[in-house]
């Protein structure tokens, strides 16, 4: 069990995160917040790249800083900017990272073969990565993150640069991996996690806003989300969220306590909540 206890992170006078308390079990934990909210800071602290200014992060009751390599041995990490050697092939690079992760040579070879197949790169396994597209590189990144079969998989904006097909493939991979491990991923793309997240973690003003299931988070707007033909005028207190093209007309989606006449109540989704919460930020 991974726990974040009263963690605060400051960069000089700037507070990136304040008093964060979280607990992670098996499943997908999605950090959902706009850019600059502190997702990457938390992710980096979980990957031991940053040290909390206050508080601690515990794995099974022991500080991860003290656990040192024992902790890093059970994590897999994909950073936001996946770094690689241009002249290495995916296979060479994964071999190098397998050595860094302390995998035995023969076990590593077997695992690398499996992973290259899993991420659909077996045909490009021995080509230099300098010729790869962003999506292909991201797939190498995902493969390296799970190379050591980690108990905790930490992914920082893993779907950046992926096309829709690759996004779906990625979601499926994450979903299957999360069955017996903790997957923590940060994103600001709601659709990436809406269907696979066990819990969604949201930050507001560098503090923890919520950590709950998608349903519970969406329920905060139950009965408050409406759609209305965009030719109709919204009330002054109504909060416009988005526009949707219907078969016959364009519809405005909005949050309201007293909706105007003709407005149709709809089931709130995670995007509604995201746009509602971060209406000043997005």
């Amino acid at each position, binding site marked *: 069990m991974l726990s974040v206890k009263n963690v605060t992170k400051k960069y000089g006078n700037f507070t990136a995160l304040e008093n964060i308390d979280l607990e992670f079990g098996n499943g997908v934990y999605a950090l959902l917040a706009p850019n600059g909210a502190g997702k990457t800071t938390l992710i980096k602290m979980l990957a031991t*790249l940053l040290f909390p200014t206050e508080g601690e992060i515990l794995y099974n009751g022991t500080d991860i800083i003290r656990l040192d390599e024992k902790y890093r041995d059970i994590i897999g990490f994909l950073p936001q*900017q996946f770094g690689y050697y241009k002249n290495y092939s995916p296979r060479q690079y994964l071999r190098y990272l397998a050595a860094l*992760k302390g995998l035995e040579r023969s076990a590593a070879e077997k695992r690398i073969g499996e992973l290259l197949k899993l991420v659909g790169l077996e045909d490009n396994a021995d080509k230099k990565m300098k010729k790869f597209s962003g999506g292909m590189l991201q797939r190498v990144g995902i493969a390296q993150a799970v190379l050591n079969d980690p108990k905790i998989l930490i992914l920082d904006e893993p779907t950046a640069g992926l096309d829709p097909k690759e996004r779906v493939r990625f979601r499926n991979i994450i979903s299957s991996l999360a069955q017996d491990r903790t997957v923590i991923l940060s994103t600001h793309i709601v659709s990436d996690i809406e269907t696979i997240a066990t819990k969604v973690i949201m930050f507001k003003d560098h503090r923890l806003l919520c950590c709950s299931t998608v349903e519970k988070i969406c329920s905060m707007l139950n009965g408050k989300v409406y759609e209305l033909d965009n030719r109709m005028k919204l009330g002054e207190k109504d909060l416009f969220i988005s526009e949707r093209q219907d078969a016959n007309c364009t519809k405005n989606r909005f949050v309201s306590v007293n909706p105007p006449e003709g407005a149709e109540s709809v089931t709130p989704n995670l995007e509604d909540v995201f746009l509602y919460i971060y209406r000043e930020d997005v």
Partner: protein
Amino acid sequence: MRIFLYELKKIFSFKRVAFVFAVGFLVLAFSRPFSELRFIKMDCWQADAIKLYGVNLSPDERKKAETELLNYYYGEMDDYISRTPELQAIGIMNHKDALYFEEVTLTLSHYVNEPEEASYFFEQSDLTQRYGVTAEDIRPLTQAEEDVKWNYFARNEGETATLNLILEKIKDFRYDMEAYDFEEKESNIGKGLFAEKNDRRILESNAVYNLSDSSWSRDICRVICFVAAIALGCVFIMVMPTATSENLSGTSYMQYSSKCGKKICLIRFAAMLTAAIAVMAVFTVVCIWGIKKHIPNEIWQCSLNGFESFMFNHRARYWFDGTLSDYAVLLAVLAYTLAAATVGVAYLISHTSANYITLILKSVPCIAALCFAGFALVNGTLVYNCSDGYELISITRYIQIPYINIAVIAFLTVGSLILFYRFYRKIKTADVI
């Protein structure tokens, strides 16, 4: 071990190796000391002497024999001075005075075409205070004066004790001792006249084989030091992009969050050190090959200091009183030690450079400093003037503190390694932004 090999492989990328050695060997090929090696031929009498008589005495025995000979000649010289009132008139009372006077004034004569340097040297010297010598006395001869040299001496003899007169007096002693005639020795050596005529005592003791004046030691050591300087520059160029290339490829997040963690920095440093030793080893082989090609093996057994440094008026001596091979090993140890310091500095610069332009800007002064340290510290300061109480003037290359270069190199190396260790400790507890 696997990570170490990976790091080593990254350092020894084909392009980097090709560039470093191409630059290194190009500089070496066109460098004066190395290209002149072929001119350091065994064509003078010492070479023949070595071939004829070999090097039989142990360093201790040779030192003892040479001390005996030296004392013998000092005694003879003191006796000669006591019988020469011209020398006593200007304060040359014993062999030390005479040798000192001779050395300083001969140094002056090196500046025959550089009047400003000669003037400065003279001002720095104590010739006036000690011997009442004026600038005019020590003025090098002009060409016109050279043409009428003997008349010049004849005119002045008996009138005033000029420098040239005094020098001639000292030279007279040399001639008296039948030990100063280079050419005669050289021409006679093949016939074995050398042994019969001039230096039987020396040859009997096998004490002749020292290198202080032959210039081989200086030339060979200059070659070693020059190669060391180039090798250190190459080491620096070879290892310095290591951490910067990691910064540029952005791989540190994956490395630091892996099981290996920030230990990768130590492993990388070890790989850089190994690469440095490999580069040094290549240049060592080239250096040995270059010297061996032109110089016979016997020379390595010759001593650096000895009786001849007195005989041939080259009293600046190496504080390291051993054979040339010992000295070469010492130079190599110093150069390899400096290579460790180089790696320490290269790592710091490399790690803190975000791109190659910053790296190059930071590196230029470091390369210059290392080459200077490699050449000047290793070579220049190993020599010092041993004439006790008679100090040479500071503008000469001789430094009076034995072991100073070892101390400086040790300081640089230990300092650089401590700096690296402190830096590593800082990295360990620092955020990876």
